[in-house]
């Protein structure tokens, strides 16, 4: 490159720099206006379907909870288990009698058998159709239980279904 752009004095540079800066600012402003237009357009055309999907999901969840609440007594009957005492409870001292609480409970249970919760037998379906319907209800709830309950509860539900199915057949 034998030819170089000529240099100018500071005053001329300042003058030309003013024109150049103005031209650049005009371009930048155009870009910013386009950006604002895009932002405004995206705000305008924001789809409404997420709102409706949210409402539908909430309605479905309410329905599932309502169904589960209706089935809850039956599930409670199927899964009722006597409470398991811990080691700590076994050795705790009853303040009134001065004897271990477990012994006091056993003593009390001799006179009042109602105080010990007994497992309530589930009502077995009488026909294969009822077994099928019952299993279907339980499978529907199972999906919910897998998310909401612990694994032991799910296994207990499934064992109960198998037991009732064998009993009905």
């Amino acid at each position, binding site marked *: 490159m034998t030819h170089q752009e000529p240099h100018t004095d500071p005053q001329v540079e300042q003058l030309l720099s003013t024109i150049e800066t103005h031209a650049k600012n005009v371009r*930048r402003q155009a870009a910013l206006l386009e950006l604002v237009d895009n932002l405004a357009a995206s705000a305008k055309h924001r789809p409404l379907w997420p709102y409706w999907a949210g409402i539908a999901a909430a309605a479905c969840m309410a329905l599932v909870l309502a169904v589960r609440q209706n089935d809850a007594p039956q599930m409670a009957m199927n899964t009722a288990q006597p409470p398991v005492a811990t080691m700590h409870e076994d050795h705790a001292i009853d303040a009134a009698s001065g004897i271990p609480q477990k012994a006091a409970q056993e003593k009390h249970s001799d006179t009042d058998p109602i105080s010990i919760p007994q497992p309530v037998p589930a009502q077995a379906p009488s026909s294969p159709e009822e077994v099928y319907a019952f299993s279907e209800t339980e499978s529907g709830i199972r999906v919910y239980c897998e998310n909401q309950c612990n694994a032991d509860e799910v296994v207990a539900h499934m064992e109960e279904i198998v037991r009732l199915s064998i009993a009905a057949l």
Partner: protein
Amino acid sequence: MAASCDYQSEKNSATSMTSEQFKAIILRHQPAMQRMAESLLHNEADAEDAVQEAVIQLWQQREGLDKVTGTEAYCIAIVKRRCIDLLRKRHVTLPVDEHLCDPPPDDTEESYEKALSMVRRLPPQQQQAILMKYEELQSSEEIARRLHISLPNLYTTLSRAYTTLRELLRKENE
């Protein structure tokens, strides 16, 4: 459904009105925002990015922007924050208030008009070459092609234009 349409149209009208007001604010303060970003980042492209990010942030906060007294200071503060974030990402540290040492550039509309009137007093080819270079931001090759002259001839033309401008400025100052 009618309710949702009403809601949508109401939202649209509110958004368009706000966007016009917002555009006016941005156009008014863009030169100062760009200046602040360039003084901190020392790079035009990075400064433009920082200003764009600041504009996006301002857009998100536009509901309260009309209540802000001194919108220019607010816009500049947002730009400054974006620049500092950018510098932090690059692990660059700057002396405190370095930008205050920079002289304010002469980029007002009045000085632009004055400079332009000076250029318009040049001979036609020199005037065209200067405007293509500094107003249209064309490359030397493109200017030479458009003026149907060689590159050395363009440099000669520009050199003469600079000399003429120097003379005009000297006469102006006298």
